[in-house]
């Protein structure tokens, strides 16, 4: 029952996608592979919610089984960690709900339990979100309009790693920027437990004009499959050793 590792993509953007496939479709594809897609839309000062197509931000997160939030950049720090935590809880609750249905029969979700009984179940949810391992791929829109928001993004990511590393479970983060020079997205920081040294990579970001959100999400998805491929190879090696030992 315990999901050993929760996988998330965190998309930080300030504009609508304007190139390539529909990002929501890619998000749905990710969700089908148990990767949650969360989206934070960063508004410009004085900008209204309409100008940053609220619909797209919401749709991507909905298709990706995740959480979305539109905010001004000052609120980014608290939002990034809130969205990440909320998505974790949501995923775990989903798993727990499925288990409940299996144990208690159809129509028995958390909502069908009175609050007193729900407490015990949620205790388990909380326990899992404290101890589960978490892998977050952070996908940062680095198009020109994001340029002056990047210092705030950097702060928020450092803060996210402080929050997540206070948990008992392991964390791994990787950062991608999009668009890349040739590809839709490029890895700007490899998998790491801590984001404190994120400062060193951020000034390097070249900012481009187009926003290929869909293709960039696909690139992110590939990274996860590459990673699990590597892991299964590593596991093979371990089991080989074990056989050798026997």
């Amino acid at each position, binding site marked *: 029952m315990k999901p050993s590792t929760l996988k998330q993509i965190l998309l930080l953007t300030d504009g609508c996608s304007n190139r390539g496939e529909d990002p929501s479709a890619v998000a749905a594809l990710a969700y089908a592979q148990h990767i949650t897609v969360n989206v934070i839309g960063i508004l410009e000062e004085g900008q209204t*919610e309409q100008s940053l197509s609220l619909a797209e931000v919401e749709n991507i997160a909905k298709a990706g089984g995740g959480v979305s*939030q*539109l*905010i*001004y950049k*000052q*609120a980014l*720090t*608290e*939002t990034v960690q*809130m969205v990440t935590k*909320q998505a974790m*809880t949501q995923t775990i*609750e989903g798993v727990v709900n499925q288990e409940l249905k299996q144990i208690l029969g159809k129509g028995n979700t958390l*909502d069908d339990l*009175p*609050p*007193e009984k*729900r*407490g015990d179940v*949620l*205790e388990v*949810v*909380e326990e899992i979100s*404290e101890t589960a391992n978490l892998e977050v791929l952070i996908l940062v829109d680095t198009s020109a309009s994001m340029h002056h928001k990047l210092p705030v993004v950097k702060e928020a990511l450092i*803060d996210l790693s*402080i*929050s*997540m*590393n*206070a*948990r*008992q479970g392991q964390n791994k983060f990787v950062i991608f920027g999009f668009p890349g020079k040739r590809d839709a997205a490029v890895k700007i920081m490899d998998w790491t437990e801590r984001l404190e040294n994120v400062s060193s990579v951020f000034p390097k970001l070249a900012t481009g004009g187009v926003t290929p959100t869909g293709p960039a999400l696909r690139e992110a998805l590939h990274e996860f499959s590459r990673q699990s491929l590597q892991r299964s190879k590593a596991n093979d090696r371990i089991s080989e050793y074990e056989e050798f030992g026997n």
Partner: protein
Amino acid sequence: MTESPNMKSSATDLRSGMRLTGKWHGGTYPLLRKLGSGAIGSVYLTERNGAQAALKISDKRTSITMEVNVLQSLKKVQGHFLGPCLLETDDYSSPSGKLYTFYVMEYIQGSRLDDYVKKKGPEWLPVLLLGLLEDLDYLHQAGWVFGDLKLDNLVVSDNPIRLRWVDVGGTTQIGRAIKEYTEFYDRGHWGMGSRKAEPTYDLFALAMTALEVIHGNRFKKGEAPKVTLKKALTRAGHLRPILEKALTGKYPTSVAMKQDMMKLLMKQKVPAAVAKQVPPARRSKRKAGIGECLLLSSYGFVCYVLYLLQ
């Protein structure tokens, strides 16, 4: 956590003046007045069996249910009174079909700590903190860390006069990641430690609360957070060494901090007469603040010691 103006609020189903009925237990509660709102839900003044009570409601139902769990387990250690007493918990399904969870708790009436100290005099700050340190010790011994300790979550109750916490939204089992916090009071934000739930986490937040009362506002961390804290401490008068130890995690337990505070207060007993002469000056010069006042009273104390030594 105070509601950020930058965040979209989804609670349009709820407003003061309406009544809501629980889905499971059928209790009916009027929402008389909004007492506050935060990242997780809003708190309203309500009525239960003819007496005032507080009702916290949110669509973040997991968080609300976890708060109920905390309040329930606090009840078990309530030989001493820890936190507000839990009265009822239920769901509310709004006409728009959205599901909320709420709980009703004791309404702790009183004033804000900063207002109280402003009105009654700076000597009340350490006295009130002393009582809170005792409660924190009980809480820590029961395996919990308060987490979101801040001015907004504290109330000076009248009878008995005691500093009490009113919102357990951040209360976390020791050893886990702090559930909810507010930047100014969070040692992680200041680069002074982790966000793991440990007694030292609460003591840092408590010291920041004291500094906020002394300064009359929250100050920004700036480029060099440690320097900012050092500077802020200079206005803390005779509380300075204690607050400094709390900020740097030198007190492993609330008891250790409480003992230092007690020593300080007992020492201070005699020059109270000197301190009494100070308030008029303070009133005429509001800006001088508590720090100076504390400084004057400790100055009085030094004079007294010198007098004794003669």
